[in-house]
């Protein structure tokens, strides 16, 4: 009886708690609208860094915190806020002060470029993603889809470039449903810079945005703090100088499509070979009026240089210590609830 009695009262509360948490996490993982009020800047970055750990160690402290917040918000309107959550900023600051190591996040050394040619825009990117000195993805995609007529190359923190381009891409889609017209490049530009500026550089995405709309071809660069440039040719990322050296010495106005692709490829190759943060293959995206062509792995200039004739094998064998399975003795005897109560 005693055993059951203590379990009973909690039973109806638990599902509600979990339900709430899953709602909350859902709104966290899909930030579709930037927060209305600017974040407390000093603590924001640490919040981003430690976000992963909140999922891994949901502890009692968080539970209580969220429950309290729930009661408070019930009094007002119960609409999820959207945008990033800053709940854990204080905790993370406290942990950082105590010397807790923050988890690293994937920051890609990158070469991304873009140029305007006679009938549109060409974007280019390398395909190396690094984590410190280690290559963690040899063939990643850095040219992101924004709209059918707009693409965007991203450098900086991989998660930020992906999140920010996806968010804006979705807003552009909704805008197209609403207006029934093709998206404009300035619209994407404005949404991106607005988002990045509101986070004061803490969303570390450096972008090259290119597209063709009713007003013609456009090429922009967007810096993590939200400043933008309008350029005939642009480069970004750790290989930007190597790529810019090529553009500055070879770019001309009114290039043909083939010349344009060749120059973009050359600029990316310059980044691949001269910048250690960039490497592997060349991705190219050609956007013209009413048409686009995504040339994934347009060039692979760096094949592996040695494949041994010998087949190196890695033995799968593990030491078998015991083949007999001993079942653990059951510690708790479970008694049917109804019968126990009656007796």
């Amino acid at each position, binding site marked *: 009886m005693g055993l059951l009695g203590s379990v009973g009262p909690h039973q109806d509360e638990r599902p509600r708690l979990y339900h709430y948490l899953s709602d909350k996490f859902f709104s966290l993982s899909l930030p579709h609208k930037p927060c209305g009020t600017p974040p407390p800047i000093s603590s924001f970055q640490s919040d981003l860094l430690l976000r992963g750990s909140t999922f891994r160690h949901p502890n009692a402290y968080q539970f209580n915190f969220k429950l309290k917040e729930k009661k408070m918000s019930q009094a007002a309107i119960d609409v999820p806020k959207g945008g990033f959550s800053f709940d854990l900023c204080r905790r993370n600051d406290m942990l950082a002060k105590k010397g807790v190591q923050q988890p690293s996040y994937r920051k890609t*050394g990158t070469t991304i470029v873009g140029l305007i040619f006679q009938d549109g825009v060409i974007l280019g990117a390398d395909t*190396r993603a*690094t984590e410190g*000195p*280690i*290559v963690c993805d*040899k063939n990643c995609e850095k040219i992101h889809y924004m709209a059918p007529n707009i693409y965007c190359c991203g450098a900086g923190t991989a998660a930020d470039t992906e999140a920010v381009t996806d968010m804006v891409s979705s807003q552009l889609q909704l805008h197209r449903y609403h207006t029934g017209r093709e998206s404009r490049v300035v619209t994407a530009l404005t949404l991106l810079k607005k988002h990045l500026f509101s986070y004061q550089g803490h969303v570390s995405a450096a972008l090259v945005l290119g597209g063709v709309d009713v007003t013609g071809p456009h090429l922009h660069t967007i810096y993590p703090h939200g400043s933008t440039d309008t350029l005939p040719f642009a480069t970004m990322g*750790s290989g930007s100088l190597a790529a810019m050296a090529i553009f500055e010495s070879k770019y001309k106005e009114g290039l043909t499509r083939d010349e344009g692709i060749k120059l973009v490829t050359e600029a990316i190759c310059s980044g*691949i*070979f*001269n*910048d*250690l*943060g*960039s*490497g*592997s293959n060349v991705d190219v995206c050609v956007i013209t009026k009413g048409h686009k062509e995504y040339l994934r792995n347009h060039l692979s*200039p*760096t*094949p*592996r*240089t*040695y*494949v*041994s*004739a*010998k087949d*190196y094998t*890695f*033995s799968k064998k593990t030491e078998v210590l015991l083949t007999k399975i001993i079942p653990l003795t059951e510690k708790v005897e479970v008694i049917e609830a109804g019968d126990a109560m009656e007796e």
Partner: protein
Amino acid sequence: MTKQHANWSPYDNNGGSCVAIAGANYCVIAADTRMSTGYSILTRDYSKICKLADKAVLASSGFQADVKALQKHLAAKHLIYQHQHNKQMSCPAMAQLLSNTLYYKRFFPYYAFNVLGGKGCVFTYDAVGSYERVGYSSQGSGSTLIIPFLDNQLKSPSPLLLPAVDAVTPLSEAEAIDLVKTVFASATERDIYTGDRLEIVVLNADGTRYEYMELRKD
């Protein structure tokens, strides 16, 4: 005037990886030839391998200026040794000398990560002179990728075994060279500081042989 360079550092990391494998009657010492700083390449053709004596070849990565000073110091010591003893230094003697030289600068260390190969032996070091005789070893930026591969393929006997088992690898010379080429091709795939070209020095009964192989240049 802003003090923008107040955090001057006397060290740099110029990257690169070194490997040495010893067999019963040979030793293969290899290193890539890329020298870099930060995210840029300084030169694609800089040898990290230094032949100190007939039977002692040193491969070092780390801070190039320190490595160069260390090599010059050891070469000078070896010259004096030759004048005094009228013979070449043996590999274990050179190994001890290297250890002492590194420890001498304990509180302003040479930022150099060394492997020393001689016939039938390999010595591996940290930057301040702690060293160990092993059958194979790797040092430098790609060593974290290379060592597990070598461990898997070469399975060195435990140094705790009694009676002591020689740590040399069972591979033939050609197999060892093939293994070295494979580990460098693989390390170049994943380590950004390793690449450009591989320099292999083979010590055996016939003397010293140099081999080269191209690596990825990105």
